[in-house]
């Protein structure tokens, strides 16, 4: 056999490579069938990381549609309520680089806000109740409406439909229980003789 290979080197190489290709192709095909995962679990995993405010700032009618779009390859930096932390988490999950939040879709808020209805002005039209994606507004037609602050995600969807504009987004106060140490300043911030301040 060695003599044959020596005599017809090109043929031998061809057979060897094609044979190996067939072998590995078969292995891969078998593995693809045997270890196949049903469904698309990535959408669930992405949805777990999104903040579930269902606000629509990303351009999609809710967090799940956006998760499905990301699974199809959409940009991951469209969610302002999630902020940079969510972008980083999704980037980690999908093993892609983590861009900065796309300012077109909104800014990351420094402080969380919840909706507050000024009850004196409320006319009981139920438009905000229909708009709230998590049913956080209590009320009925011609009866007083009020926001259940614990359930409100701060998505802002109730502010527009209100015909008398009586809904405010108020910041949530940080209590001493939730306070934690800020990150220490980096060395670059501490050195006074920096020539270029942004470094």
């Amino acid at each position, binding site marked *: 056999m060695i003599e044959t290979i020596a005599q017809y080197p090109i043929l031998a190489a061809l057979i060897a490579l094609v044979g190996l290709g067939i072998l590995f192709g078969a292995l891969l095909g078998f593995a693809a069938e045997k270890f196949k995962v049903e469904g698309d679990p990535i959408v669930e995993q992405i949805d777990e990381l999104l903040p579930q405010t269902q606000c629509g700032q990303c351009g999609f009618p809710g967090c799940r549609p956006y998760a499905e779009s990301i699974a199809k390859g959409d940009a991951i930096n469209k969610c302002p309520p999630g902020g940079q932390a969510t972008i980083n988490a999704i980037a980690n999950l999908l093993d892609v680089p983590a861009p900065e939040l796309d300012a077109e879709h909104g800014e990351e808020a420094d402080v969380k806000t919840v909706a507050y209805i000024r009850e004196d002005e409320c006319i009981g039209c139920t438009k905000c109740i229909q708009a709230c994606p998590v049913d956080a507004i209590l009320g009925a037609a011609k009866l007083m409406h009020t926001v259940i602050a614990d359930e409100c995600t701060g998505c802002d969807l109730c502010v527009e439909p209100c015909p008398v504009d009586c809904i405010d987004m108020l910041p949530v106060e940080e209590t001493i229980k939730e306070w934690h*140490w800020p990150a*220490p300043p980096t060395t670059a911030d501490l*050195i006074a003789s*920096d*020539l270029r301040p942004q*470094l």
Partner: protein
Amino acid sequence: MAFKQITSPHAHASQNTGKVMQLVLWATLPGLLALTYHFGWGSLINVVLATATAVATEALIVQMRGRSVSFYLRDYSAAVTAVLLGLSLPPLAPWWVVVVGTLSSIVVAKHLYGGLGYNPFNPAMVGYVVLLISFPIQMTSWVTPLALLPDGVSHPGLVESLSIVFAGYSPADGVTGPTPLDSFKYSDGLLVDQIYSQNPLFSQAGIAGVGWEWVNLGFLAGGLVLLGSRIFTWHGPVAMLAAIAIMSALFWDGGSSNSPGSPLMHLFSGASMMGAFFILTDPVSSAVSNRGRLVYGALIGVLVYIIRAWGNYPDAVAFAVLLANFAAPFIDNYTLPRTYGHIDRRRATEKEEDQQEEEKSK
């Protein structure tokens, strides 16, 4: 009354990075003295030239990055890198070899990655490898040790050495010569005993190569001082030296013509001791936990022996260290220490819940 808001702890031990680096510099002195005594002024010139280049380069780069030069130079890390590189280069190497090497170390291997603490590879070794591959001839012509100089020839004096280094004068005949590892590697066909008796580099030596054994002993002394001052832990150096000794003992076939050399020779030739105590212990690029350092040191030792015995190069510390730097994060992943209150150690990327699930599924 208003007071400053400062985070705890408020007390502080007196150790600081600058002092640590300075101690390392002092510890290289015995080795440097041995080099100067046995091989002339070349090494000292290398060290001084490399240090000057390194400090100037670092100052320039720190300035370009918009940071405070005095703050960043205060930690002496550039000086340490330069000194280690200078000590590994052949004495009487041309000045541009030293400069190119130092520039690659400081600029490419250190600052392009983010500066001190951010480099994944040992900067001095990166510089050395760049030089070795780019300028093989200059990097492999060493100087004959003092004891073996032919009659009438002496090591060039200071001024002559400076002119050799800077002005390109050639040294007198007989001044340059191979290193012990070099000549051992290229003595094919001779039994080890024969090499030892015939080759003057070995016949006039105590344990391994003339002059070189003193250099290695010098670095060993410096290393022990650092070990005693608890600058680093014993795990890395001991693992490397043990690995070299064990590998060379394993493959010692009684001194045949194919033998790669005795444990004693390997431990005291070339850059073994310097590598064990000064190169491998560079904390930035080595493994993080003590167990990890054992593995890291052993890996370096094994690689050094393999390359020396069956590879193309006579000495291999630089390559071995760089290869181990590649492996360091992987080693870290598997050698986390067991934390108080946990039953078992785990890998650096898995959380406890995942580990418990794994345990259950087993």
